[in-house]
C-alpha cells in the first residue's frame, strides 16, 4: 500500500462526563476506502468530526499528509466533507454550491466554470447547474454534495452517513455509484456508517467501532469471517454465540454430552471457557433420525420459525438451553414445525473463537 494520508494518535474526545472517542489510533492509506462502522453513539461521527476539524480532541494528535493539523481550524484543512443532511446552501444554485470551494480558493472564473461542469458530469448532473437544491430529489442533492466536496480535489473525502437519508432502492444504487466515483478519482476516503451492508460492499478496510474504540480494523471479508470480538460478531451479520468449555485442543463441550469439533487454526485453551460464534448460513439443518449426518451433529428442537421468502430463519434450542440460529433455503425439502426434533451440522471450520 501507499503512504499514510490520515493518522490519528491516541485521540480522545470527551463531552462532559461522556467519553465519545477513547484513545483512538488509526492510519488511513493513500487511495484507501476506509469505513468506520458501528451503532449510534459508538464515536464514529465524532471521530470524523475530529478529522474534519469540527471538534478538537481532548487529547491526541491528528496528522494529514504527514502534517500535524490538530490545532488547525476546519477551513484550513482542505478536506472534502459530505453530510448526511446534504447541507447544501439553499439560497444558491447547484452551480454556485459546487463552485463554493473554488471561489473560496480564488480560482479564476473560467477555470471555476470548467471544473464545476466537470464535477457535475462526474456525478451525472450535467445541465442541472441553474436549479436550486430543493428542486432536486434526495439522491440528486446527495450527488451535488459529493460534487461540491470533490471539485477542489481535496486530499481526503469524509463521508458522514451520506446514504442514510435515502430510501432503500436509491441507497443501493448510490452505493455502487459512490464506489465507482471514488475509484475513478482515486481519493482517500473515510466513510462513516451504521449499515454493515454499505461497509462490507464499499470498503477496502472496515474499522468496527464500539464505545469510542476500534474493535477490529480489517478488510470486509476478514471482519465477516474472522470477527475479533463478540461485539463484532454480533454487530456484523447475524451470528450465534455459543458458550462452552474447551475439552481438547480442537473440541468444545457446549453442554454435558454435547460437544463439537472446532478448527480455527489455533489451539484452544484446554479446560477454559470459550465463546464460539457461527454464521446461520453455515449451519445445515436435517430432520432428526434422517440418513447420513456426521458424528458431531447436535440434536435440538425447533423453537421458532420465521419465513423470509427466499429462506426461513430457524431457531433451534439444543441440550443445555443454548439457542442456535440457522437458515434453510426455500423451498425447503424439509417440513419444519415448531417443536420438531432436528439435527444440526456445524462444520468445524465455520466456528470463530471470540476474544
Amino acid at each position: 500500500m501507499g503512504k499514510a494520508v490520515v493518522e490519528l494518535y491516541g485521540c480522545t474526545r470527551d463531552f462532559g462526563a461522556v467519553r465519545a472517542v477513547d484513545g483512538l489510533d488509526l492510519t488511513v492509506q493513500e487511495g484507501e476506502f476506509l469505513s468506520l462502522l458501528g451503532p449510534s453513539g459508538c464515536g464514529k461521527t465524532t471521530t470524523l468530526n475530529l478529522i474534519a476539524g469540527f471538534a478538537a480532541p481532548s487529547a491526541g494528535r491528528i496528522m494529514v499528509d504527514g502534517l500535524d493539523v490538530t490545532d488547525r481550524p476546519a477551513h484550513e484543512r482542505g478536506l472534502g466533507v459530505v453530510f448526511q443532511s446534504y447541507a447544501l446552501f439553499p439560497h444558491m444554485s447547484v452551480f454556485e454550491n459546487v463552485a463554493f470551494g473554488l471561489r473560496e480558493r480564488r480560482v479564476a472564473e473560467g477555470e471555476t466554470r470548467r471544473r464545476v461542469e466537470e464535477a457535475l458530469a462526474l456525478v451525472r448532473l450535467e445541465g442541472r447547474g441553474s436549479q436550486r437544491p430543493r428542486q432536486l430529489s434526495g439522491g440528486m442533492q446527495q450527488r451535488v454534495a459529493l460534487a461540491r466536496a470533490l471539485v477542489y480535489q481535496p486530499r481526503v473525502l469524509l463521508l458522514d452517513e451520506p446514504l442514510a437519508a435515502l430510501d432503500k432502492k436509491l441507497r443501493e444504487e448510490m452505493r455502487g455509484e459512490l464506489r465507482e466515483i471514488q475509484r475513478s478519482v482515486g481519493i482517500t476516503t473515510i466513510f462513516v456508517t451504521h449499515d454493515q451492508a454499505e461497509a462490507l460492499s464499499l470498503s477496502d478496510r472496515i474499522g468496527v467501532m464500539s464505545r469510542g474504540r476500534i474493535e477490529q480494523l480489517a478488510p470486509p471479508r476478514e471482519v465477516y469471517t474472522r470477527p475479533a470480538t463478540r461485539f463484532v460478531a454480533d454487530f456484523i451479520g447475524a451470528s450465534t454465540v455459543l458458550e462452552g468449555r474447551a475439552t481438547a485442543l480442537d473440541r468444545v463441550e457446549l453442554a454435558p454430552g454435547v460437544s463439537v469439533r472446532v478448527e480455527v487454526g489455533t489451539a484452544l485453551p484446554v479446560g477454559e471457557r470459550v465463546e464460539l460464534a457461527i454464521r446461520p448460513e453455515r449451519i445445515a439443518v436435517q430432520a432428526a433420525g434422517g440418513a447420513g449426518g456426521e458424528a458431531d451433529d447436535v440434536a435440538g428442537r425447533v423453537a421458532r420459525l420465521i419465513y423470509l421468502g427466499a429462506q426461513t430463519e430457524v431457531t433451534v434450542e439444543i441440550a443445555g438451553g443454548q439457542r442456535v440460529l440457522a437458515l434453510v433455503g426455500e423451498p425447503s425439502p424439509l417440513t419444519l414445525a415448531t417443536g420438531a426434533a432436528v439435527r444440526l451440522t456445524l462444520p468445524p471450520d465455520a466456528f470463530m473463537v471470540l476474544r
Partner: protein
Amino acid sequence: MSARLAVALLLGFMTLPTAVVVAVSFNPTAIMSFPPDGLSLRWYANALTYPQFQRASVNSLIVTAGATLVALPIGTAAALALERGRLRARNVWATLLLSPLVVPGVAAGLGFLILAASLGLLRSRAVLIAAHVALVLPFVVRSVWVSVANLDPMLDRAAASLGATPWRTFRRVTLPLLRPGLSAGLLFAVIVSANEFVVSLFVSNRVTEILPVAMFTYVVNYTDPTIAALSSLFIGATFLLVWLADRLFGLAAVFLPDR
C-alpha cells in the same frame, strides 16, 4: 358563510377609526366633524407647510434611521447568540432582551429622562435614538431569531469544510439566509420607531421632537382637521412602506403561515 361575515365585521372594526380620520381630513370647515360636510385639500396644504411639522418630520427621519441602523446589527448579534451561543441562563437573557415590550412607556420614558438629564444630554437627538433602539430591539431580536432558528447549523460546517473562514461563512451563507428575518425586523423597527410617542415625549423638546410628539402638541392647541390630514399622510406612507417591503423582500413569507 358565517366565517366570511365574522372576518368582514372584524376588518370593519379594525379599519373604522382609520376611515373616520381619512374622511375628516377632507373636511372644508375648521372643525373635526364626521361625516364631512364637503371635500377640500386645504388641511393637507396646511399640514405640509406648518414649520414645526417640517422640522419634526426631519427629526423623525433621523431618529428612526439612526435607531434602525443601530438596532439591526445589535439585534441580529443577540438573536445569533441566543440561538447558537453557549449561554448560561439563556431564558433570562431572552426575557431581558424582550422586556421593553412589557415595561410601560411612561416608566421607560421617565427612566430615560432622568438618565439623560444627569448626563446633560437632554437637548440631543442621541437620547431619542438611544431610547428608540431600546424600544425596537425586542422586535428585531424576535424577527431575526425566527430566521436563525430555521438555519441548519450544518451549513456552517459545510462552508468551513469548503475553506470559508467564519467571517466569509457569515457573509456568504448566514446573512443571506437571515434575509427574511432581517427585513421583517427592519420593517418592525421602522414602524415602531416612527410611531413611538410616550417615551419620545419625555426625552424631546421643541427642537428635537419627532412627528408623533409634534402632532400631539398640535392637537392640544388646535382643533382643525390639519392633524387628520397629516395622519392620513402618515397612514399612506406606512402602507406604501409595507407594500414596498413586501415587493422587495417577500414579507408574506415571514408573516403568513406556510401554505
